[in-house]
């Protein structure tokens, strides 16, 4: 406790949360946990996990959780949806979307942290839309345009095909986060911070 700064900023409890959420994002991409509407609609829930990480962990921890996941993917673990892994994911056409997960989760978390102890559902939806959809597209579309050589405007237009699904995911993430935060108040970033401070960082 006498260690200044370091331990305060990164208590072990947060380390565990970051690790478990990185794992949660990976698990949401696995088949079996993913056939939510039956097997007919093969949607990937990993961006849902990214948004949930943002809403529940807050800015820095959420970004770190995504970084940890991406590092393990880069090292070769098949943790992306459909069992993909390895460096190929980071040079392929969707590389920008993957990298965009990091700022996406951070922005989502930042917006929720600003809402204080009891973020309402509207606030959560806005945070998920801005961070989990807007920011990720902002990184993903230009990179895809560069990699494929398709003009930026056309790439953006083509990406609209994924927009409805992502909008639904943002709303779902908010509803799920709201439910989680009702059942487990410590899942609200502001409340968690307060508890850490009250407990003297312990």
């Amino acid at each position: 406790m006498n260690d200044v700064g370091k331990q305060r900023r990164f208590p072990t409890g947060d380390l565990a949360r970051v690790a478990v959420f990185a794992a949660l994002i990976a698990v949401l991409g696995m088949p079996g946990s993913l056939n939510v509407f039956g097997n007919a609609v093969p949607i990937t829930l990993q961006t849902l996990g990214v948004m949930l990480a943002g809403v529940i962990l807050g800015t820095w921890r959420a970004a770190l959780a995504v970084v940890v996941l991406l590092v393990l993917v880069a090292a070769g673990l098949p943790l992306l949806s459909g069992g993909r892994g390895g460096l190929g994911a980071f040079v392929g056409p969707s590389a920008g979307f993957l990298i965009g997960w990091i700022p996406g989760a951070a922005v989502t978390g930042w917006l929720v942290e600003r809402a204080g102890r009891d973020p309402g559902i509207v606030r959560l939806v806005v945070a998920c839309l801005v961070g989990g959809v807007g920011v990720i597209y902002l990184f993903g579309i230009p990179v895809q345009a560069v990699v494929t050589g398709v003009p930026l405007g056309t790439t953006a237009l083509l990406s609209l095909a994924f927009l409805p699904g992502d909008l639904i995911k943002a709303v779902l993430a908010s509803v799920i986060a709201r439910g989680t935060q009702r059942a487990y108040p410590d899942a609200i970033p502001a409340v968690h911070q307060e508890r850490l401070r009250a407990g003297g960082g312990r």
Partner: protein
Amino acid sequence: MNGLTGAYVPRASPLHRLPAGAKLAGLAVACTVLVLLTSLLALGVATLVVVALYALSRVGAAAAWAQVRPVRWFAVALFAFQLLFAGPETAAATVLRVVLAVALAGLVTLTTRMSAMLAALERCLSPVRFVGLDPFRLSLLLSLTVRSVPVIAALAVRVREAQRARGVERSLRAFAVPLVVGSLRHADALGEALSARGLDD
């Protein structure tokens, strides 16, 4: 859930012996060069180089295909699209560029042990010590994550069974809320266990 192994193919080739950091840097340079190459001729030469590198690594055709496979449909769609809007030459060039970059990245993955790659990436991440994550904690974080994947996957299976028992199979909410709450409970218990073992000091 026990398929948590990398795609590494052990062989005795010069590519396998190169340090992981050098291969990562080489990959970054190669991808930049690929983006800058525009003529079909230059990309043809690049293709020969990539094929030669694969031959040198002796990983085999099946392993090579497994690396490129994820982008196959995308490549077809991209080719069709570019053929329509930019002509056959541009179409072939853009598709080659994407496939070659993915193939090269795959080659690095195939020829590098996961532990070596993790060590190289950890070194890249060492600036995070400025936010309070020293190298020890970073390693701990990475291994905790690897360990947590099967735990959370098992939790997902349990939640799914409970959901079936409750007759709310089709509700995503009835799946995700217990899963996230359960994950948080697990995380906080894990954090306390780490604290109790003196990881905070």
